[in-house]
Every structure is written in structure tokens, then in C-alpha cells.
């Protein structure tokens, strides 16, 4: 596995709290890597340290096995969580400016602008000012400015925040296209369902510490097929007390049950079906969300001891 980006034991402390605590992670080249955790987990601080916007108190950030070199900034496309643009500039001007300071030539920029604007269906707005665009259009424009210079590494903080559903689909497709080009993509989010559909690798962090990381598929299988989704009509509160049910997580219109090792899933199905009208009873790998909820409750130190890292 060739690592494009590697963090070695980085830490960052603000006055009263530790934002990132001894965090290490490896991002393989050409992968989509999700840094996942609740608000305040240290995701933005980690990303800012990767971007060299703030310096870590300890530890190293390695790009291709080296300390970040001067032209690294030209090879990375970065979209912070809070996204802004010069409101008074035209689309063309802002795209050109941000691409030029990434070291792109005028010819390259002029050639790429129409391609990207068409891809994002913003072609007719080329000479319009940024302030004339709707919020959704501005989001698409921000993605153009992040990607136009064909970066080797794309870093997106809170990828899905503020995106409308149509744009989420559009951006996902564009990121998959970038991945095929060999680009390494790292993003952070607290929206786990979206992350699950996009990531090859994930790192769960909580309170500045790594909870769990690795290939998404492996993590899911490691947590076993001990999860059951139940959709049933009526009062489901009794499910919690059935033998073998370790934990129940309620979602909008279904329950996710976590079973222990001795559980008999057939007995449980029978029990529920006897009392209620069952629409769905599905055994599957746990969602990222339930894994996270499950693990984050335990002290991360504790967890690392019980479950050696992959």
C-alpha cells in the first residue's frame, strides 16, 4: 500500500483543551479517505495541520514520505468548512485568481474554465458576479476553484455541510471521477451515512483521539453480521428485553438491534412476529453510525487494547 499522506503522532493543544491527541493515520494514494467524528472531535484542526495553516505542537505530516515541500500547496485542492469567495468578482476572475496562485498558466486556466463551468452547468454565468449566484451555484463554483488546477490531493472539510441534495450527487460523481484520475481524496464529515457510501478508508475520531481506522469493508466485517434491522408496526419497546439483544438503536422508521454472540436470531424474529406485524427483518453489517456510537462510548485507550489496530 503506497501512502500518499501520513500523519505521525500529531498533537495540537489549545489553551484549555487538547484538540488533537497523538493522532496517526495513513492515506493510501488514490483512495477516498473519510475522517469521521462528531462536532468538536478535532477534524478541522487535523485538516488545518495537514494544510500547514497551523503547526502541530508535536508530530509530523508527511507527503509521499517527505516533510511537506514548498510546492505542496500547488498540488493540493482545499475546501474549508466555511466557504467564501470574493463577492464582487466575476466567476471567471475568481477562478483565474485562485488557479493562478496555485501556479497554473493562463493558457491552462483559459482552456479549463469553460469545461468546468459546463460540467457544473454554470456556463452562462461566466461573466456574472459571484454575488449574483444562488447559494447552490456558489457551492458548485467553490468546487471548481478547489479542483481546476488538477490537484494530487483533495482535502474537503465537512464535505456535505450546506450542500443541497442535488449537489451532493453531483459532487460525489465528480469526486469518483477525480479518484479514477488517481487523485487522493481526504474529507471530514459528521454525516456518517453519506461517508459510508463514498469512502474506501475511514478514521473515526472522538475528543481528538483516533477511535478506529482502516478499510471500511474490513471494519464492517470485523464488527460482524450481528446487526438486525427491524421494521414493524406497533409498540416495539419489548424488543429491548428479548434474550440475546444487547442494544437497540431507534431510527426514524426502523430499529437496529445489536445481538450478542449467543443470540438466536430466529428466536428473536419469531418473538417479534408473534406480537407485531413485521415488514422487514434484515441481518446485516452494522452501520458506521452504530459502530461509532458503540465505540465512542468507551474510552479510546481501552478500545485500542481490546481490539488491536488493523
Amino acid at each position, binding site marked *: 500500500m503506497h501512502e500518499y499522506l501520513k500523519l505521525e503522532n500529531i498533537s495540537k493543544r489549545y489553551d484549555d483543551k487538547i484538540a488533537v491527541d497523538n493522532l496517526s493515520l495513513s492515506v493510501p494514494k488514490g483512495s477516498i479517505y473519510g475522517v469521521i467524528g462528531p462536532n468538536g472531535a478535532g477534524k478541522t484542526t487535523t485538516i*488545518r495541520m495537514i*494544510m500547514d*495553516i*497551523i503547526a502541530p505542537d508535536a508530530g509530523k505530516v508527511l507527503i509521499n514520505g517527505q516533510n511537506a515541500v514548498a510546492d505542496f*500547496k*500547488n498540488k*493540493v485542492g*482545499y*475546501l*474549508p468548512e*466555511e*466557504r*467564501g*469567495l*470574493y*463577492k*464582487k*468578482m466575476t466567476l471567471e476572475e475568481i477562478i483565474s*485568481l*485562485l488557479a*493562478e*496562485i*496555485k*501556479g497554473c498558466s493562463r493558457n491552462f486556466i483559459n482552456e479549463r474554465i469553460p469545461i468546468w463551468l459546463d460540467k457544473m452547468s454554470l456556463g452562462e454565468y461566466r461573466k456574472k458576479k459571484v454575488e449574483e449566484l444562488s447559494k447552490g451555484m456558489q457551492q458548485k463554483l467553490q468546487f471548481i*476553484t478547489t479542483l481546476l488546477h488538477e490537484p494530487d490531493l483533495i482535502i474537503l472539510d465537512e464535505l456535505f455541510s450546506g450542500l443541497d441534495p442535488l449537489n451532493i450527487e453531483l459532487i460525489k460523481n465528480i469526486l469518483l471521477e477525480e479518484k479514477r484520475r488517481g487523485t487522493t481524496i481526504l474529507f471530514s464529515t459528521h454525516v456518517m451515512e453519506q461517508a459510508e457510501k463514498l469512502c474506501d478508508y475511514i478514521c473515526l475520531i472522538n475528543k481528538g483521539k483516533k477511535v478506529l481506522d482502516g478499510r471500511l469493508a474490513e471494519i464492517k466485517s470485523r464488527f460482524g453480521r450481528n446487526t438486525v434491522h427491524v421494521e414493524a408496526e406497533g409498540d416495539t419497546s419489548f424488543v429491548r428485553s428479548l434474550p440475546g439483544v444487547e442494544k437497540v438503536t431507534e431510527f426514524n422508521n426502523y430499529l437496529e438491534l445489536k445481538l450478542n454472540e449467543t443470540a438466536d436470531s430466529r428466536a428473536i424474529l419469531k418473538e417479534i412476529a408473534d406480537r407485531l406485524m413485521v415488514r422487514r427483518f434484515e441481518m446485516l453489517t452494522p452501520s458506521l453510525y452504530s459502530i461509532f456510537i458503540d465505540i465512542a462510548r468507551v474510552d479510546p485507550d481501552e478500545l485500542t487494547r481490546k481490539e488491536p489496530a488493523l
Partner: protein
Amino acid sequence: MNKLWILIKSEYNQVVKKKSFLIGILLTPLFMVLVTVVPALLMAKKSATTEKTAIIDLDKQGIGEKFKEKLAEYKLDDGGPAYEVAEILTPDPLDSVSIATMKARLDSLILAKEIKSYLVISPDIENKDTAFIVAKSFGFRTSGRFERRLSDIVASLRLEKAKVGVSIDSVLHLTRSVILSEKAPGGRERDFLTVYLGGIIFVMIIFMTVIGYGQILMRAIIEEKNSRIMEVLVSSVSSFQLMASKIIGLGLANLTQVAIWIVIGMGIYAFRGNLDIRADIAEILFNPVFIFFFVVYLILGYIMYSSLFALIGAIVNTDKEAQNFIFPITMSLIFPVILASYFIQEPDSTTAIVLSLIPFFTPTMMILRLSFMGVETFSLSNPIILEAIIGIVITALADILIIWVTARIFRIGILMYGKRPTLPEIVKWVRHG
């Protein structure tokens, strides 16, 4: 192309392409012309007509007639009489009712603009020493002339009565006053008002452009901080490049503006026609030594104060919060102007020298002193030139220090949202930056 240069170009264009830039360039000189040239024009026009006046002679010894003769000596530029005495009134008898009627009639003539003024010669003027002039407004020129002529006539009357046996004309000739005119070393004529205004104009240019562009810089930083584009930019360039590009880009816009003003000023002077522009203003405008120091101090002062504005922009979140910090900056820039009327008398006093070598005051104070003292040639043996050069070195060193401090605060400040940092926090940024 260098990233710094790309950003400088972008900052420069963002300012220069705005309509407000063009308006500022055109309106400011227009305003200056309005307050300087127009009154001069109006005054020139006014003095070109004959002033009508009248005399009430309550003394009744023929002073009124003599005064009329003396006034006839004043001529306009075109050779016509400067004054015309419409009538000389000698009330008889000298009762208060007829005097009041007479005055009332002349008052109404003034209101009807038939006459400009009238002179009332008091009874027994040679002992009481009083007379008065009635007019809607008083030009200092006319009052001065009336007073001098009337004094001469009364003096001659006294001499005659004292029987001094000397001819009146010879006494007046012997007691005539000396004309005192003001000149700078080197023999140039210097007029208090022109020197004062000349110096103030250049300091005001520094003051207005530095405050103006400093605030544009600060607002841009606050806005970009709030719109979060800062974070996108620092992913491509260093925070120092970002700060430098803003200061340099706006600085070039500032210099463009001042250069256009200087060219406009020279143009107005070249095509002044018969406008009465003082020679010493031209000497300031066309004096390469002075202009050299002016441009250097404009640049150094701009760098110092715009860095401070950048610092404020980096630590506050709104324009409103920034206002508290702007006040001391404005004060330290305008401080020399407040003291200008004192320094014009003693531009090389120890106080003036010491104050002009305190970096925050140097740019404006040194320009004031240079224009008050007048500089002819670039000679180091002239103490003011030497002091101006020492001032440049001190200000440049202060600029470097301020930029260093600002860069450290800027780096962290532009990424801080929400709470404004406390002073100890800022000190920590500077020490550990």
C-alpha cells in the same frame, strides 16, 4: 508568475477599477480648488470695482474734504479710482435728531447697495481719537487704509494747532512706517499663510490617503475573514504573502492617486493664466528635494499605518469593533497638524526635533518641518536634511518591527472567528508565533 505579484495585481485592480477610486481622484483636488482658488478669484473680482463711500463729518474742520482727497490717491489695477466719496455731510445744527436721520438714510443706502460704507468722523476727533466706519462687511484692506489716512490728517491738524513750525508734509514724510516683508534664508520671500497652508496640504495628503487606504485594507481583511476566503487563500500562499500583497497592492493604488494629484497640481499651475498663485507654493510643488522626502515619507508612513490597520482587521470581527482601535491611530497621525501653528514659529526647536524623530509622528512631522524650514538642495550639512534622513532610517526600522509583529498576529488572527482575542492572548501569539 510569482504568487505575491498575482495577489498584488488582484488587490490593486480591485481598488483601482472601482468607481470610488476615480471619484476620489477627481473630487479631492476639485474640493481643494474650491476652497483655495475660488475665494481668490472672487476677491480678485471684487477689488476690481470702485467702492462707493460717504462721510459724516461731525468735527466740521474740513477733515472730510481732506480725507476725500487722500482716498483719491488709491487706484485700481486698471487705473480707475479705488474709492468714490458719494457725499460729505456736515449736519448743522449738530443735534442728535438730525444726526440720527442722516445715519438712517445712509444705512438704507448701504442696504440698497448704493454705497458700500460710510465714515463717521466724531466731534473733537483730535482729542478723542475716535471715528467709526459703518458697512455690512469689512475688508481688512479698506479699514487699514481709512485708519492710516484719517490718522495722517488728524496728526497734521494737531501739528498745525501746536504751531510746531515744521511743515506737516515733512513730518508725515519723516514718520512714515517701514514695510516689513518675510523671507527665508536664501532670499526667497515667504508668507506665513502660504508656508503654513503649503505644509498642511502635504500633511493632509499623507493623512487622508493613509487613513483612507488603511481603512479599505482593514475592511477588506474583516470581510475576507468573515467570508472565510482567507482560509482558501492561505492554502495556496503563506499568510505573510497574503498580508504583504494587500499592503503593497493598496499602497500602489495610493501612490497612483497621489501621483495623479501631483500631475493635476502641476497642470493647474502651468495653466494658471492670471490666477494669483503664490510663488512659494510653486517652489514647494516643483522642489525635487521636498517631493523626494514627501514620497519617501508617504510610503514609510503608509506601510506603518496600514500594517497597524491590518493588525486591527486581523483581531476584530466587525467594523464596529474596529472603531475603538482606529481613534488612537487617527490621533497620532493628525497630532502634528494640531501642533503645526506652534512649529511654524520654531520648526527647529528641540521639542520639534524630538517629536519628529518619534516613528509614529515622523512621516507627518518631518514633512511639516521640511516645508516650514524650506529645503533648497540635497546637502547633508543642512541639519534638517540630515534629520530627515535619520527620520527615514528610524521610521524604516519601526516599519520592519511593526510588520514583524503584525505578521505574527495576522497569521493566527485571520483564522480566528467569533471571540475577539484578549491582550495576553495576542502577546502570546507574538511571542510564540
